[in-house]
């Protein structure tokens, strides 16, 4: 199933990616091949098979509500693309 240009542009928009025309062509082809690959699953007959909500057969794993040490501010901000005081600094978001 070939993906439409609009679908690829929309997914790029959702991922906040700006694509050049070249990239757009490249990824449209690649994404189509990925979706086709996954689509093979549709050939399986799942008649009478209960939908699976989770792959692991275990449940109810909890931790107690007890504080654990946090990172220092400097450690937390070590990978920040930009820092202002003790904050991450990001380009203004209007939306």
């Amino acid at each position, binding site marked *: 199933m070939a993906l439409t240009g609009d679908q690829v542009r929309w997914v790029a928009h*959702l991922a906040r990616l700006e694509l050049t025309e070249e990239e757009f062509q490249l990824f449209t082809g690649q994404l189509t091949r990925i979706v086709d690959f996954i689509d093979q699953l549709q050939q399986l007959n799942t008649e009478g098979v209960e939908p699976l909500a989770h792959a692991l057969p275990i*449940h109810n794993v909890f*931790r107690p*509500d*007890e504080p*654990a040490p946090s990172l220092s501010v400097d450690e937390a901000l070590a990978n920040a693309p930009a820092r202002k*005081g*003790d904050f991450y600094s990001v380009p*203004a978001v209007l939306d």
Partner: protein
Amino acid sequence: MSRPTPYTIVIGLEVHVQLLTRTKLFCGCSTQFGLPPNSATCPVCIGMPGVLPVMNRAAFELALKAALALQCNIAPFTKWDRKNYYYPDLPKNYQISQYDLPFSTGGGLEIMTPQGPKWIGLIRVHLEEDAGKLLHDETGRGGDSLVDLNRAGTPLLEIVSKPDMNSPEEAKAYLEELRLLLREIGVSDCEMQEGSLRVDANVNIRIPPEHAGGRKPLPGRQYVATPIVEIKNLNSFRAVERAIAYETQRQFEEFQESGKQLGEVSKATAGWDDVQGVTVVQRRKEEASDYRYFPEPDLVPVEVDQAWLDRIRATLPELPAARRKRFESQLGLSAYDARVLVGQGLAFADYFEKVARECGDAKAASNWCSNQVLAVLNERKISIQDFPLAPEALADLIIRVKKHNINAQRAREVFGIMLQTGETADGIIKRLGLDVSFDAEELRELVKKSIAANAKAVADVKAGKQKAMDALVGFVMRETKGKAPTDEVRRLMNEELAKV
């Protein structure tokens, strides 16, 4: 009441409340409000690769508690999903939320409206994590935004109502009842100022065809429905009321121009500008499929059995609705009085109940608590826990006021002195010489005596000069050195005069 409109307002509310846990939903970082920026984060809540979230048991149990109190159906099996979107306050680029299998559905709560009680249904309640906090440059020069991730990962309950509210007042009543309930059961402190309760309102209107300017309802509808707008940035219950009132009228006016109906354009979000008092439509909202939900592979599902639910249910205190009913049926209070008392919160209602039990007169206890006591709390800006009079002391005052027939004004005087000096009601009443008891017969004799001694005043009253009553009552007051209960004297005087 809002003014009548040519349309019906339809409101559904989405409420987020932070749960009162010590730590975050998936890690041990503190949830305390007001910590220095970015001082309560760890690799789990800032989305470092390779970390594993583990669910906080206390958070899940608080969520269960809230859902039980809201009469929801608890799912025996529930799981979490990733809601994918890109925003600087969301370090993982997805929020761990619940999509198709929330831990609870249905339920609701009852609110009071001018037309009587009304049930507001819920669609679902689910448990998710909060995002961080963004601080925007307020200078308008487009400077960078600052991100504080302390809040990221805080447990959040999302409570989605059905579109069952039909006026701004009903929306406010729902929020007040919800806040009261969640506070009483200790699930959330619901402080809008601190962001532990946040509200989004989904609003549209239904216009009957005769007001729709010739436009016909879409097939299958009896009315014209406008597209739904989700209002955000509502920072107080008052803002919710004002925003809904403004937005619905705006939709009515927009419809007159555009003629666009629900289903013809997609849902929009709008921001509420509290200073200008307007909603600003921002954008067409992303559809659910745009969030590309999929099961969170790092968390395992949760199964809830009856025994667990029973254990949680056993921790619930008497809920506000049940308590109001009991105040009415067991203590004989009016629905209004019960609402005022319970509406002040658990501790206040407890205080009232102790006073009522001690003095044996629930109505009098209710009057004292919801008038005098509440006035003092408001004036001093304190809560009932800091109120200086023990319930026994107030009950004692009520008993003595009744016994000595002390009138309302003098009784308030005694109350004021008790508050100031901490003296007992008994001591003050004795000191002021109010400790006289008149039995009804004694008073009646004095009333008769006054009538016999004041023929002119009696004739004047009979001739319609109510002012002459003062002379008759004044006679009794002089005879008793001012200690007789005036109200009672007046009542007896009327009775006796009727016989003359």
